[in-house]
């Protein structure tokens, strides 16, 4: 495919990095430094220019493009860029927006603005956070096979009963596969005798029940039901989180220091208790028993404030902290210093867009550790190397090491083991490092 991407920020660069091996990618950005950096770091053509000007788009030969993605930080620019591209090109257009108003309009009109697919950053981040809330101790959760399969990432806490045990000892869950372990930046594909250490990031794939049971095992003291949620900050993403939690029947609390904004939020969110205060005011926090909350979500306007309020929440006794992080590079750091889970809206956005760029057999994709690795759901066809033989034997035919994490056949979950035979029409959920993902996807 020929893909044109407007905006070489975090989202645009992640998408370009994911696509540059298999597709012809052209990236347009106004910023010279970004254009230069991309020219040398990726196998893409980076053009300096304004993505809403037709002449720039024609320089990028947008009329020959199959896919047009506008992922700048400005909603209006993205929508206008798609509309501009539409005037000369039949490419499938994807626009990234932050504000949900545009998404509502687009959904209601069945595709306004010349946008074929709209991705809302705040909504995606909110959905990710709510999924993480639903699974104790997790740092990332994604749903596959229509909810039959969960992919979850856990960090093994210090002193966890799981730390120091081998995978075989831990593996008492029938419907769960340990897909990978991230340790000090390396990916380990676990064998039975691999020892799990504290601070490892585990990637597991399996049924929701087994995943939940394992999460409970991982941190035995973490038996709270995650019902009492406090949201710190009244950003656009915070509103989305609160609404999603309301939809699940929870009554979250939201702390916002600006009186006007607090009033606005209170009018918008009927099922949420909005409190007007500075979230760092210890006296207020004690008075409101914020420390008793199960989960605190930091959704303020800056990463520094989010980190601070998360650490403060832990300090006063909140069991789990989840924070939004605008800078992707900080997510590891946040989790390293004790934030339970750090969610980067841009990563979530890139993931959603990349799903769209995959071929028709790929049903779903999750990016792990900023696209170090991917979990994919693929419908297996007759010419896949997986079909008709036990998984153990197909390993030799695959271009690289992958873990088959789960299989669904006619809507039922089959937990793969070495002797499982995969049939045509099965949906497999597998884990592979990003470097080899395209080769794997072709073979499967």
């Amino acid at each position, binding site marked *: 495919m*020929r893909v044109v991407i407007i905006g070489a920020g975090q989202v645009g660069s992640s998408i370009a990095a994911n696509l540059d091996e298999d597709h*012809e*990618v052209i990236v347009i950005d106004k910023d010279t430094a970004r254009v230069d950096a991309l*020219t040398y770091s*990726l*196998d*893409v*053509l980076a053009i300096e220019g304004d993505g809403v000007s037709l002449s720039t788009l024609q320089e990028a030969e947008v009329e020959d493009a199959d896919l047009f993605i506008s992922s700048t930080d400005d909603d209006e620019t993205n929508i206008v860029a798609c509309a501009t591209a539409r005037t000369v090109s039949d490419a499938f257009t994807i626009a990234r927006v932050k504000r949900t108003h545009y998404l509502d309009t687009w959904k209601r009109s069945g595709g306004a603005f010349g946008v074929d697919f709209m991705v809302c950053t705040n909504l995606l981040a909110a959905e990710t956070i709510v999924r993480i809330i639903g699974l104790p101790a997790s740092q990332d959760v994604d749903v596959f096979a229509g909810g039959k399969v969960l992919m979850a990432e856990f960090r093994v806490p210090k002193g966890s009963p799981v730390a120091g045990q081998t995978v075989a000892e831990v593996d008492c869950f029938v419907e769960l596969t340990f897909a990978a372990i991230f340790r000090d930046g390396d990916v380990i594909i676990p064998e039975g005798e691999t020892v799990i250490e504290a601070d490892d990031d585990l990637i597991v794939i399996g049924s929701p029940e087994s995943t939940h049971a394992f999460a409970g095992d991982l941190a035995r003291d973490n038996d709270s039901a995650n019902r009492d949620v406090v949201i710190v900050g009244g950003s656009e993403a915070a509103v989305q989180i609160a609404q999603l939690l309301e939809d699940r029947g929870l009554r979250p609390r939201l702390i916002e220091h600006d009186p006007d904004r607090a009033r606005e939020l209170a009018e918008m969110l009927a099922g949420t208790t909005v409190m007007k205060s500075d979230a760092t005011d210890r006296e207020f926090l004690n008075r409101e028993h914020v420390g008793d909350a199960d989960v605190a979500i930091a959704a303020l306007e800056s990463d520094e404030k989010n980190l601070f309020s998360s650490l403060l929440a832990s300090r006063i006794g909140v069991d789990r902290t989840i924070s939004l992080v605008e800078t992707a590079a900080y997510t590891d750091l946040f989790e390293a210093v004790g934030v339970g889970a750090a969610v980067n809206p841009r990563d979530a956005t890139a993931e959603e867009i990349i799903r769209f760029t995959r071929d028709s057999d790929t049903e779903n994709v999750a990016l792990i550790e900023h696209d170090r690795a991917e979990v994919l759901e693929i419908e297996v066809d007759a010419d896949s190397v997986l079909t008709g033989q036990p998984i153990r034997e197909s390993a030799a035919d695959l271009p690289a090491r992958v873990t088959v994490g789960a299989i669904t056949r006619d809507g039922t979950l089959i937990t793969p083991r070495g002797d499982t035979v995969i049939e045509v029409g099965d949906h497999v959920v597998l884990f592979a490092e990003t470097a080899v993902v395209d080769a794997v996807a072709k073979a499967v």
Partner: protein
Amino acid sequence: MSWRLRVDWRASVGLVGTVIKYLSGTFLIPLAVGFYYGEDVPTFAVSFLFTIVVGVALERIDPDPDLGAREGFLMVGLTWLVVALVGMVPYLIAGVVGTESTLAQPENALFESMSGFTTTGATVMGSISLADHSHAIMLWRQLTQWLGGMGIIVLAVAILPELSVGGAQLMDAEAPGPGIQKLTPRIAETARVLWLAYLGFTVAEMALLYGLHLAGLAPNMGLYNAVAHPLTTMPTGGFSPEARSIEAFSAAVQWAIIPFMVAAGTNFALFWHVFNGEPERLTRDTEFRAYVGVLAALTAVVTGLLFVGTGIETTTTNVPPIVGEIEDSARHATFQIVSIVTTTGYANMDFNTWSDPAKYILLFAMFIGGSAGSTGGAVKIVRWVVIIKSIRRELFTTVHPEAVSPVRLGGRALDERAIRGIYGFTLLYLVFFFVAIIFVIADAWRVGHQVTAFEAMSAVAATLGNVGPGFGEVGPMNSYLPFPATSKLFMVFLMWVGRLEILPVLVLLTPAYWRT
């Protein structure tokens, strides 16, 4: 970004091995020529096998190289060094086994090889003639220049899929001029486009030269010469199987070669735009216009100097006296200016016989260089354009201290960092030039070899700028043979840093690069 602190030299060496392995295939061309003429077959068979073995051996040091930015510099620098080392093998074998060639000396063979690949065209061959050397060896000499012209790394990126990711960085380290231009989304495709344009020009020139021969306008331009010369015109190399270089051919041939030299000194990316139906991209390009302007201005001055008579005594029978002969004056001036500015280094007469003003103009021209993205050497036109423009800005801001005045190139404001880089490179180039002169003169004095300052200056300018011939004893009809071995090895180094534009090599010599 790789966060490894140490340089993973194994990865660099492994990749160099891969490049060498594939490059060994080029020995098959002189091998075939050797078979045809029945000479030097074992020489090239052995060279071919030796190179494959070296390539595979180096490749095994790291079969799965993972190249970061630091490793890229090392890989590019080493590639050119190793290529020169394996390229000298046929000279050594042929020199030792057959002819009593000067190239039997290792330092001479290395000099000839490095001079070839870097498209310098300076020679240490004692006698350049097919009577003393086989057709195959002489063709290999031409071929080294052709391979080095558009770039060994560019060729590797075009062919080897494993270089697609870091390819842009590698090409940047090798490509002449500041930065590279991607023409297509895929760097490998860009590299292929450049090589195809290069190949196209080469074949066109072969057809034209041989056509002239068939039409009876070029008696000496037989098939062998018609194939051999384009192989060193397009890379702005300057080697010729003829001892008298282009002087051995008719006026028609000399005129025919000029436009190809001009094309070789032009940014090849612009040809791609012309081919895509955007010829205005070429004619509007600031650098190209400056380049043509410089050629025209210098040619006009030198034509005048030659026409009014400058004490030239023509030494060969096939070149008529040129004083007062407008066609001859114009032809020699145009040919020689284009040849020197583009750093080709062909000669259509012994310009040692020119007057001092004309010679100094040529020496000055050795610093100009071709365009960025061309096959030319030296400083490059675009850098001079930027320097002149930024000096104009200094003058302007002296008068208007509050003025904010970006330096523009082709309508676009240049980044201040880019300007600093251009200043830095140019200054470094001149520092290298002056320090190298001292070295060459001191080394000559050490062994009691007579060399004038002007000769030493021209030798350094011609090797550092990848031009080839200088003046006096390193003039176009002479060779670098009389220099002591130490000086020759030093010039090998100069050609190497000149071809890679100093920084990629210099960075390897800084302790910070290797520090953990």
